[in-house]
């Protein structure tokens, strides 16, 4: 320590400036480093994908500027219908999901309906299953020829029986809503649970009857939460890739996300310009949706009294109608689980046939044997786990440092880093996949077609979650716990590893598991990044499903679903089932 001798000669102005800048840099070292990494990681792909929608030619670095792609896209009838389809699909599935979820949430949280625990169980299981797998399952259930339900209908009503056409907008909406359902449920259930019971008791004391109280107090109180859930599932619908790709493509029902895929993968020469236009449109819609969502949640938070006090709202006793409500609490979860069950069945058959007693004798483990001895699959499995674990580690590490900057060293800089890290929220998986390809395809450093490119995409995509988890965890840690270590004489690195990380361990574990689990389910994000030489499980399943190898696809789906479910179980054990679930929304 420099003993300042009396302070007789005041230091020069420039020396003061240098000293101040030095102190500022010391104070914000970690934020500066993480900010720089995130800026290099996140900003370029997003900028490049928007920019490339204005550039002609395949090489984004040497193209001419043009509006031609926009002119081309808007002259196509298919693109206008894609925009319309996107809205219908997203709005329809969002509304259906919220109606279903709030109905179930009401019965589970506020009545003594049976099977309440079962609902939570299925919701958590369903959250762990890859969406691609669920969509495949629905095709097995509702497919026009071999679909289980259609064959039942034929058995019941003969050959002229009404047939369900799963390859239609109506069924796309229904299926998407069952896929969004678990997350929406976890989002709205706390609103029903956490409402201060005194508010309802006050209404009752004022002379309002049960129904009156429900109508005038209970539902108005949860309405903002429902609106927030509606907007978020709308965004999820807009970004959804798997369901439109599997169910919409055969009957030419295109949405924006599949339009991007079509321009890149199905064309003879990929049209990056048109794809970038679709991507830009998709981001615009997402930005609007997210903006509305943010406004809605601020309002929702004003209503839901989260005081940390464990409210125990009164349950409505349903009396003799109690068992009737099982229709809701049993049927909805079964519908959500149905596609997984049928895939489970399918994975034990060499040649698929709908479940029946006659088929039981054909059950075999040979598919599992075959899949586990396919080198492409095992290497894809290894890649998936390594990538998922690395992404989880990096995301939580960056997230912790960035969140620490925001909360402990608040400044414009740390706020900027926070915004930067949250930016990927507006970039749907397919768009990010395209953006990363576009950036690195002609990049001077050859990292295209390596695992690095997938890791970069995963880290970018899950960065907002790393921030949110760490922010939520750190905000509950009293800052004096760190200050006590500062005053005790510990330097920042020491405080970070000896105090902060141990204190944040539950958050880091929960967030890491969440990200890991989500990466295992990810298809849209890797769709353009994975290839024959570099596969992850979801892209491998996608490829063999497109080759009509149903048996192996469903077997592989089961093999990846089981570890995901185990991780999901640990995750909810760590976080307390449903407790922190609103954080873990949209595990995609």
């Amino acid at each position, binding site marked *: 320590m420099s003993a300042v001798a009396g302070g007789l000669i005041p230091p020069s102005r420039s020396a003061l400036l240098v000293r101040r800048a030095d102190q500022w840099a010391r104070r914000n070292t970690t934020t500066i480093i993480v900010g720089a990494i995130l800026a290099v990681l996140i900003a370029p792909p997003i900028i490049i994908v928007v920019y490339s929608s204005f550039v002609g030619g395949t090489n984004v670095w040497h193209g001419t500027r043009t509006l031609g792609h926009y002119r081309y896209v808007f002259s196509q009838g298919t693109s206008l219908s894609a925009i319309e389809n996107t809205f219908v699909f997203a709005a329809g599935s969002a509304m259906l999901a919220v109606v279903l979820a709030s109905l179930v949430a009401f019965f589970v949280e506020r009545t003594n309906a049976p099977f309440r625990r079962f609902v939570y169980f299925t919701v958590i299981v369903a959250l762990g299953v890859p969406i691609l797998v669920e969509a495949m399952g629905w095709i097995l259930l509702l497919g026009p020829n071999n679909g289980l339900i259609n064959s039942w209908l034929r058995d019941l009503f003969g050959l002229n029986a009404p047939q369900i056409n799963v390859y239609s907008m109506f069924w796309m909406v229904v299926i998407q809503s069952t896929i969004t359902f678990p997350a929406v449920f976890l989002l709205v259930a706390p609103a029903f649970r956490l409402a201060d019971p005194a508010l309802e008791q006050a209404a009752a004391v004022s002379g309002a009857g049960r129904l009156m109280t429900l109508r005038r107090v209970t539902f108005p109180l949860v309405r903002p939460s429902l609106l927030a859930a509606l907007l978020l599932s709308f965004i999820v619908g807009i970004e959804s890739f798997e369901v439109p790709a599997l169910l919409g493509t055969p009957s030419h029902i295109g949405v924006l996300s599949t339009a991007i895929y079509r321009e890149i993968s199905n064309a003879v020469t990929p049209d990056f310009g048109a794809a970038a236009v679709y991507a830009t449109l998709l981001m615009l819609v997402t930005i609007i949706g997210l903006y509305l969502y943010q406004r809605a949640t601020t309002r929702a938070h004003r209503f839901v009294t989260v005081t940390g006090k464990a409210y125990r709202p009164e349950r409505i006793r349903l009396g003799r109608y109690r068992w009737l409500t099982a229709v809701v609490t049993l049927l909805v979860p079964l519908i959500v689980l149905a596609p997984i069950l049928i895939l489970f069945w399918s994975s034990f058959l060499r040649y698929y046939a709908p479940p029946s007693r006659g088929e039981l004798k054909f059950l075999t483990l040979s598919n599992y044997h075959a899949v586990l001895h396919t080198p492409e699959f095992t290497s894809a499995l290894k890649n998936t786990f390594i990538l998922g674990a690395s992404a989880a580690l990096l995301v939580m590490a960056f997230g912790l440092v960035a969140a620490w900057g925001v909360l402990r060293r608040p400044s414009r800089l740390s706020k900027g880093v926070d915004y930067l890290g949250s930016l990927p929220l507006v970039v749907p998986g397919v768009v990010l996949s395209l953006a990363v390809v576009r950036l690195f395809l002609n990049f001077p450093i050859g990292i295209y077609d390596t695992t690095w490119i997938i890791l970069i995409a995963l880290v970018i995509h899950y960065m907002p979650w790393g921030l949110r988890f760490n922010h939520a965890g750190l905000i509950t840690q009293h800052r004096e716990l760190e200050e006590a270590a500062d005053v005790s*004489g510990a330097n920042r690195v020491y405080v970070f590893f000896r105090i902060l990380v141990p204190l944040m361990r539950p958050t880091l574990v929960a967030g890491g598991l969440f990200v890991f689990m989500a990466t295992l389910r990810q298809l849209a994000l890797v769709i353009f990044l994975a290839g024959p030489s570099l596969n992850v499980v979801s892209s491998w399943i996608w490829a063999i499903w497109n080759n009509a190898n149903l048996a192996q696809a469903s077997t592989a789906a089961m093999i990846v679903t089981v570890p995901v479910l185990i991780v999901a179980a640990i995750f909810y054990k760590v976080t307390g089932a449903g407790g922190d679930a609103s954080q873990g929304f949209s595990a995609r």
Partner: protein
Amino acid sequence: MLKVTGLEKQFATRDSDVVRALDGVSFVVPQGSLFTLLGASGSGKTTTLRSVAGLERPESGRIEIDDVAVFDGSRALFVPPNKRDLGMVFQSYAIWPHMTVFENVAFPLRVKRKGRAEIREAVDRTLALMNMEHLAKRSSSLLSGGQQQRLALARAIVASPRLLLLDEPLSNLDAKLRERMRFELKRLQVETGLTTVYVTHDQMEALALSDEIALMHDGRIVQQAAPAEIYHAPASAYVADFIGSTNLLRGTLRGGDGVGGRCVVQVGDASISGVLAADAPTGAEVAVAVRPESIAMELLPRSEQEPTPGALHGEIRSSVFLGESTDFLVSAEALEVRVRVSGVNPGFAIGDAVRLRLPETGLVFRSETTADQAPGLPQTEADGAVTDTIAEAVL
């Protein structure tokens, strides 16, 4: 020794106003003494302490510990907290829950890379000093409030810091324990001889513990003195009001012998003698500070309606039983006067007509210094509760 000179710090509020959190704070804490920063919340006492610790960065001013500057605004000098060699007890105690009691105390020594045996010896000695050697192996998340407090203290002193900083260390304890810990703290400070800065909003704590008290208000030190002096000779109406409960009786100055001398104040119809604490011209609006326990109250016989010289006549409005004494709120001459009568059975009832004899030593202040306060309304939380009770009783 700690020397703080001219600390200034501003905070921007949400409506982009600027609040002067510290407005030229200066004081010196001699080696080995216990110095208290006393004040209401928002007075700047905690900001001052955190600036000394290096957890807060003032805009200007100078802080020296043992004649070495750790902060100097004019030279952009700032020594980070981990290089200041301090011990600090936080309001929340900040006990690390992932460590045992022993590890918590050992932390400052481990940071300094002391040897294993030395750490063991120092921690054991400190825990013994705090009477908690039997808890060494316990997980620190299993401690009671009082034990946590003692653990925080042990951690703060184990490395023999140059300065011990205490940020409202007793405020999270219940009343009984707080009183006991007060003695404990004092004993410890005397035994270790550590130069200590103590922050509190509790005037009783400050009076009981301190060698010297600095009362802060709006980012400034309004009076700095030894406990007895600050109690008996407050420098302003604000201080008089803050330290102990005080009646501030408003009136007009009728003349006197200048500052420090006798004067007469017209309060309603009555004339009251007092000591002029600050210069004021005859005819000025003043307030007489009178402690409730120094007013003598007696029943007024029905026959005696003539005004008594130097006394106030009034009627008892309400009473609050405090155990060893009883507080009465008396309305007299459009004033509300609080009177404390000691003894279990004071012999007064609500509605009684009474005569209040005021001491001739009440300090007289210029009234504008108390413009923002209603007379007799005490500022401390504990006293606030009493007034609230009285107010409720009146209603």
